[in-house]
C-alpha cells in the first residue's frame, strides 16, 4: 500500500511538469494549448535525436542544450501565430493549436516512425535510493519529483516576486489597462509561451528518460496535464502541483486494482472533482 502511494506521488511529479506549461499559458492569456501533449512528445524526440547524435553527452546536458531552442520556439509561436488567434471567441486558438497537434504528430511519425523510443540515461534510470524501512525508490522518479517542486516554486516566485511576473498578472487581469500603462501585451504573451515551452521540453526529456515516447502519445499527455490543472484549481501553480499528485495517486491506485483501469480511474477522479468541487481543490487568484 505504502509502495502504491509512493509510486503515485512520484508519477504525480511527472504530471506536474506536464501541467505547469498549460497552467501558465491559460493563466496569462486564457489560451488552451491543445498541442501541449504533442509538444512534450516533440521535446522528448528532440532529446532522443540529440542524444543519438552526441552519444557522449549526458541527458542533463541534452536538456540544457534544448532550453534555448524551446524558448525561441515558444516566443516565435506566440508572437507570430497564436497572438492572432486571441480574443473572446476560443475557437480560433483551439483550431490552430489542434491543427498544430496534428502537424507535430504526423511530422514525428514521418521522421521517427511509430515505434516508441526512449532517451538513454546512461544507466541512471535503473539506480535507486534506499529509504529507511527497507523500501527503495528509483533515483530518476525522485529527481523528476524534485524538478517538479523546483519548477513550481520558481514559477510561483516569478509571478509573485519579479517585474515579469507583475507584467504577466497585469495583462491577465486586464489587457487594455496594462497596455495603457506601457506594456506590450503581445511581447508579454510571447514570453509566457516561451517559458511554457521551456517547461514543456523539461517534461519531454524526463518522460523520454523515464519511459518511452511515441508520436501518438500526445493527446493522452494533454489530458493528464489538463486534469491536473482542473483538479488543482485554476489560478495557482501549487494547486496544479497538488492536482497532479492527486491524479498520479488515483491512477496508481487504479493500476493496482486492475492494470486496465488505471487511466480510467484517473479520468473518473477528475470528473468526480469537477462535479463536487468545480472550482478545483485549491482555487486561488494568482498574485
Amino acid at each position, binding site marked *: 500500500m505504502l509502495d502504491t502511494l509512493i509510486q503515485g506521488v512520484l508519477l504525480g511529479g511527472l504530471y506536474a511538469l506536464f501541467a505547469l506549461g498549460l497552467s501558465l499559458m*491559460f493563466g496569462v492569456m*486564457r*489560451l*488552451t494549448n*491543445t498541442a501541449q501533449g504533442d509538444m512534450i512528445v516533440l521535446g522528448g524526440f528532440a532529446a532522443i535525436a540529440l542524444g543519438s547524435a552526441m552519444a557522449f553527452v549526458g541527458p542533463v546536458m541534452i536538456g540544457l542544450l534544448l532550453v534555448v531552442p524551446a524558448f525561441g520556439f515558444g516566443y516565435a509561436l506566440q508572437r507570430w*501565430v497564436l497572438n*492572432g*488567434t486571441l480574443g473572446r*471567441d*476560443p*475557437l*480560433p*486558438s*483551439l*483550431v*490552430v493549436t*489542434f*491543427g*498544430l*497537434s*496534428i*502537424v507535430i*504528430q*504526423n*511530422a514525428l*511519425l*514521418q521522421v521517427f516512425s511509430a515505434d516508441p523510443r526512449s532517451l538513454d540515461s546512461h544507466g541512471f534510470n535503473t539506480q535507486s535510493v534506499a529509504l529507511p524501512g527497507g523500501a527503495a525508490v528509483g533515483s530518476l522518479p525522485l529527481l523528476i519529483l524534485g524538478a517538479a517542486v523546483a519548477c513550481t516554486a520558481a514559477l510561483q516566485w516569478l509571478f509573485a516576486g519579479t517585474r515579469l511576473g507583475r507584467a504577466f498578472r497585469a495583462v491577465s487581469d486586464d489587457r487594455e489597462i496594462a497596455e495603457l500603462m506601457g506594456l506590450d501585451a503581445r511581447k508579454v504573451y510571447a514570453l509566457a509561451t516561451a517559458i511554457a515551452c521551456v517547461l514543456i521540453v523539461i517534461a519531454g526529456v524526463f518522460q523520454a528518460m523515464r519511459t518511452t515516447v511515441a508520436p501518438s502519445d500526445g*493527446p493522452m499527455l*494533454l*489530458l493528464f496535464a*489538463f*486534469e491536473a490543472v*482542473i483538479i488543482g484549481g485554476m489560478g495557482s501553480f501549487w494547486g496544479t502541483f497538488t492536482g497532479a499528485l492527486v491524479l498520479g495517486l488515483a491512477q496508481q491506485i487504479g493500476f493496482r486494482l486492475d492494470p*486496465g*483501469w488505471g*487511466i*480510467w480511474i484517473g*479520468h*473518473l477522479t*477528475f*470528473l468526480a472533482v*469537477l*462535479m463536487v468541487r*468545480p472550482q478545483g481543490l485549491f482555487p486561488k487568484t494568482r498574485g
Partner: protein
Amino acid sequence: MTMAMMTMQHPPTAAAAPPAPLELQVERGNRTSRAALAIGIALALVGATLPFWGESSWMRDFVEIACYFIFALMWNLLAGYGGMVSIGQQAFFGLGGYAMLMLGNFAGVNPFVAVPLAALATAAVALPVAWVAFRLQGGYFAIGTWVIAEVFRLGFANMSVVGGGSGTSLTALRGIDKATRESTTYWIALACVLGSIALVYLFLRSKQGLALLAIRDNEVAAESQGIAVRRTKLAVYAVAALGAGLAGALYFVGNLRISPDAAFSVNWTAFAIFMVVIGGIGRIEGPIVGALIFFALNKLFSDYGTWYLLGLGLLAIVVTLFFKQGLAGWVQQRYGFEFFPTQRRLRL
C-alpha cells in the same frame, strides 16, 4: 415567407410630432435560397433512385460521406451557433454506434430501425453528460468533453459483452442479402442527411434558433433579455448529440464491425473541425462544402498517409488565421449567394 408588421418609435425627445407608423417587411429568404430548395429536392429525388442504376461502391461512398457530413453539421451547430467548441463529440458518435449494435444484437431490434432509436438513446445520455461538461467553459470545455469521450472509450474497452478492446461484429444483419442491405443502408443515409439538414435549418430559423444566436454573440446580454441561456444551450447540446449518435449508428450499420478505438476516435471530431473550418463555420453551407472538399481530398491524397494528415492540419491553421469565414463565407461575401438564410432581413 413570414410577414410582420412593426412600428418604429422614436425616442420621445427626437421629434415633436409623432411620425406615421412605418410598414416593414421581414425577409427570410431570397432567390438563391428558393433555387437551392428546388435543386435540393430534385437532387434528392434523383438520388433516391440510385440503387436501381448506380454501382454499389457509389452507395458505400455516399454512406461514408453522409456520416462525416452529419457529424460535421452537428459539430457546426454546437460550435458555430452554440459557441460550445467541443473536442469530444466522438463520445456520441461511438455511443450511437454501440447503442445500435446492442439493440440489434441483444434486443433483437432490426438494425435499420435501431439507427434512429440509437440516436435518441444518445441524446438521453447527453443530458447527464452536459451536467458535468457545462461546469467548464471555453477551451477547458473543449478538453473536458474529450476526457468524457475517453471515459466512454475505456469503459467500452473493458466491457467484455461487446468484445472489449478488440470490438465485435453486427451479427443482427446476418441473413439479409448484400444488395438489400446496401440499398437500405443507402436510403437510410439519404434520409438522415436530408432530415439533419432540415432539423438544423428549421431549428435555427425558429425562435430558439434566434435565442441561440443571441447567446453566441453575448451570453450576459442574452440572459438580460429574458433568454433561458442554460436551457437553450442544453437543448443544442442534446440535438448535436442526437445527430452525432445518428451518424455513428449509420456508420457502423454500413461498416458491420465496431471497436472502441474506431468508434471513439478523436479523428472524427478532428475531421469535423477541419470540414467546418474549411467550409465556413457558423453557416449551414459550411459543412456541406467542407464535406465535399474533404471527400475529394481523401480520395485524391489519402494514400500519402502522414503527409496528407500533416497537410490537413496546416490547411486548418492557415484557413483559421487568414480566411476566418471559410470557403462558403468567402463566396457569400464575394457573390452574395446564400442557400440557407437563417437571418431576418428588414426591408423598408
